[in-house]
């Protein structure tokens, strides 16, 4: 009887096991198991097995066993972090270390396997991109003047399709990577909005605008990489969709992004003060309507749209694994009269490596938000100009006008009134710079800054492309009254013979945004 009952129980148990197995198979798509199976071993491999600070390695586990065993594992790492899918992100290290990655059987936590990943510190100089100031990407037609260029490699994410682009303008006055469409030779995937509509962007610069789609790329400069980054592909106005009038009417200037000659570069890398080009202003903060910056472009036409900060074109520096606190631009001195070419460095990170410490540089804090975002106070001849800024994308010193400075503008072949031609050349000038808070008041000391300018007609009569003394007027209307609203634009002339730091917002020590030199 006992036997019979037992026999009966075994049969019932077997029946339930079959049911349980079937239901597990159904639930797990055939990959499941049950308590009958046994996990015997877990083996782990990671590729690549040697990485540098902040880089990633994909680890995979092979679980062996008998019967219907559970093949899933949990991940852990002795250093850095590892995702549920086995992607190891290395910590930032100053000396090499061996990271032990462990995969533990979910079914039997007593069975696990390990693999080693060697993490090396970033090699010296991996954060240095050579800068050249030269005549630009198309010198037979256009000679660029005082433009710092670097070489950038972009790739289609997840592939080995890459393109190396030279003559990419380094711009501390903007954020984001933008490439002239005719230069692009790899199929960057479009960044579509959630409804499937293509995302386009209207970007306004000082003297015009650029228009084009937003796509995704991996961006590598020197040894630094930012992955899956939204970038802008700049198209001519003749390419569909044409720029909407709400885009072009924000400036009286032309579409500057339609060709290499119009843009004066193959691409631009904005390494300015801000993490994104637009930031919170383009996200839906309860505003009535989205600003005319990002556009959804279904076939019926383009209309402004809100986007999240993650959808916006970002400053790639902020997305580097390391050296992501800002940039240092280091250019040698240039003699009066200029130089044919200049070689310097775009160094990533501030205070992150032995080559990018602030040292004795003075920090000029600037507001993060408001109508004076990114500006500090320049005082010239006793008058404060609280909308002043440092901008490697401006070609020279741009300030005030002849009525205030007494310095005549150039006549002749140059576009009228756009450059200074001092009668005493070089003309030695002095001003002070001081940090600024959100309400426009000074922060820190006002520190004197000396600069010299020369006759632009004389400078441009040479074959030189790098000038520490190039200058022009900005504003014929500012400079009197109790609240002058005008700027000193400390363009590339200012950078020669200095270390100029641009500190990214919300990161670093001190916390950005700031300029320092």
């Amino acid at each position, binding site marked *: 009887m006992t036997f019979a009952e037992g026999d009966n129980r075994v049969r019932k148990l077997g029946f339930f096991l079959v049911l349980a197995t079937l239901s597990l198979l159904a639930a797990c798509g055939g990959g499941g198991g049950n308590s009958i199976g046994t996990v015997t071993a877990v083996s782990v491999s990671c590729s690549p097995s040697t990485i540098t600070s902040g880089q990633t390695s994909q680890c995979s586990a092979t679980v062996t066993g008998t019967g219907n065993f559970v093949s899933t594992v949990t991940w852990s790492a002795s250093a850095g972090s590892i995702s549920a899918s086995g992607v190891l992100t290395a910590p930032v290290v100053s000396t090499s270390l061996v990271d032990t990655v462990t995969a533990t059987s979910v079914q039997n936590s007593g069975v696990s396997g390990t693999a080693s990943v060697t993490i090396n510190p970033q090699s010296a100089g991996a954060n240095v991109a050579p800068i050249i100031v030269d005549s630009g990407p198309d010198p037979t037609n256009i000679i660029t003047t005082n*433009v710092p260029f670097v070489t950038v490699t972009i790739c289609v994410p997840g592939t080995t399709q890459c393109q190396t682009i030279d003559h990419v303008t380094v711009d501390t006055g903007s954020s984001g990577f933008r490439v002239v469409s005719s230069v692009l030779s790899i199929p960057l995937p479009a960044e579509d909005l959630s409804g499937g509509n293509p995302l386009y962007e209207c970007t306004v610069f*000082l003297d015009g605008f650029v228009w084009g789609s937003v796509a995704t790329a991996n961006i590598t400069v020197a040894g630094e990489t930012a992955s899956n980054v939204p970038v802008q592909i700049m198209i001519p106005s003749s390419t569909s969709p044409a720029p909407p*009038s709400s885009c072009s009417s924000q400036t009286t200037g032309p579409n500057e992004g339609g060709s290499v*000659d119009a843009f004066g570069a193959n691409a631009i890398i904005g390494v300015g003060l801000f993490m994104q080009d637009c930031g919170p202003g383009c996200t839906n903060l309860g505003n009535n309507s989205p600003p005319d910056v990002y556009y959804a472009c279904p076939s019926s036409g383009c209309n402004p749209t809100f986007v999240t900060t993650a959808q916006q074109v970002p400053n790639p520096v902020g997305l580097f694994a390391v050296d992501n606190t800002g940039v240092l631009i280091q250019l040698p001195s240039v003699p009066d009269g200029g130089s044919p070419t200049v070689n310097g460095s775009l160094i990533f990170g501030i205070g992150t490596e032995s080559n990018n410490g602030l040292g004795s540089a003075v920090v000029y804090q600037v507001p993060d938000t408001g109508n*004076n975002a990114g500006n500090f106070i320049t005082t010239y001849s006793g008058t404060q100009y609280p909308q002043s800024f440092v*901008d490697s994308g401006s070609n*020279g010193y741009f300030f005030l006008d002849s009525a205030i400075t007494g310095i005549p503008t150039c006549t002749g072949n140059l576009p009228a009134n756009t450059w200074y031609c001092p009668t005493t050349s070089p003309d030695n000038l002095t001003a002070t710079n001081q940090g600024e808070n959100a309400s426009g008041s000074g922060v820190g000391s006002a520190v004197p800054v000396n600069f010299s300018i020369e006759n632009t007609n004389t400078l441009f009569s040479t074959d030189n492309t790098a000038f520490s003394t190039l200058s022009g007027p900005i*504003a014929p209307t500012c400079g009197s009254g109790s609240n002058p609203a005008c*700027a000193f634009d400390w363009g590339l002339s200012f950078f020669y013979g200095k270390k100029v730091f641009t500190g990214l917002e919300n990161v670093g020590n001190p916390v950005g945004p700031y300029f320092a030199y």
Partner: protein
Amino acid sequence: MKSLTCFRLRSASGLGSLLALFLLLLPFNAWAALGDNAASVLTDQARMKGTLSSIDNRTYVLHEITMVSGAKVREYVTPGGAVFGVAWEGQFLPDLELLLGAYYQQAQQAAAEQAASTQTQQGGVPVRRARGPMVIEMPGLVLVQTGHMRSFHGVAYVPQLVPQGVQASDVR
């Protein structure tokens, strides 16, 4: 200096207010600001969905429109009711075609000529490409735009319309 609401403007008489209301009721119209009459300020305010404050400065009336983003547009009006200058500041630029009215095309053409002179090879000789602030000075229009991404500033005025006793530099 005293602060006035938009319907108590010196230049906005009862008839002017009626005209302004009428203009606001139009779904789309050709009115614009620079060189235009004071009523166009209200059109601009409506289009920009901004709030308006006005100051009677005796020699001119200053209307300041503040948009939701915090960006500002200032319009300067003569005692006779003509807009002689406009200024703008903020992260986002205003619709300059609206703000400059009939002067927009002139400014656009001048900017295009300036750009062409530095973007097109002339007689086999390469030209110098330059980037910096936008400065346009013509006999009938002065326009300046400066700043950088996140913070733009600009002014435009018609020298011939600037009232006696007012400095062009008051437009800012």
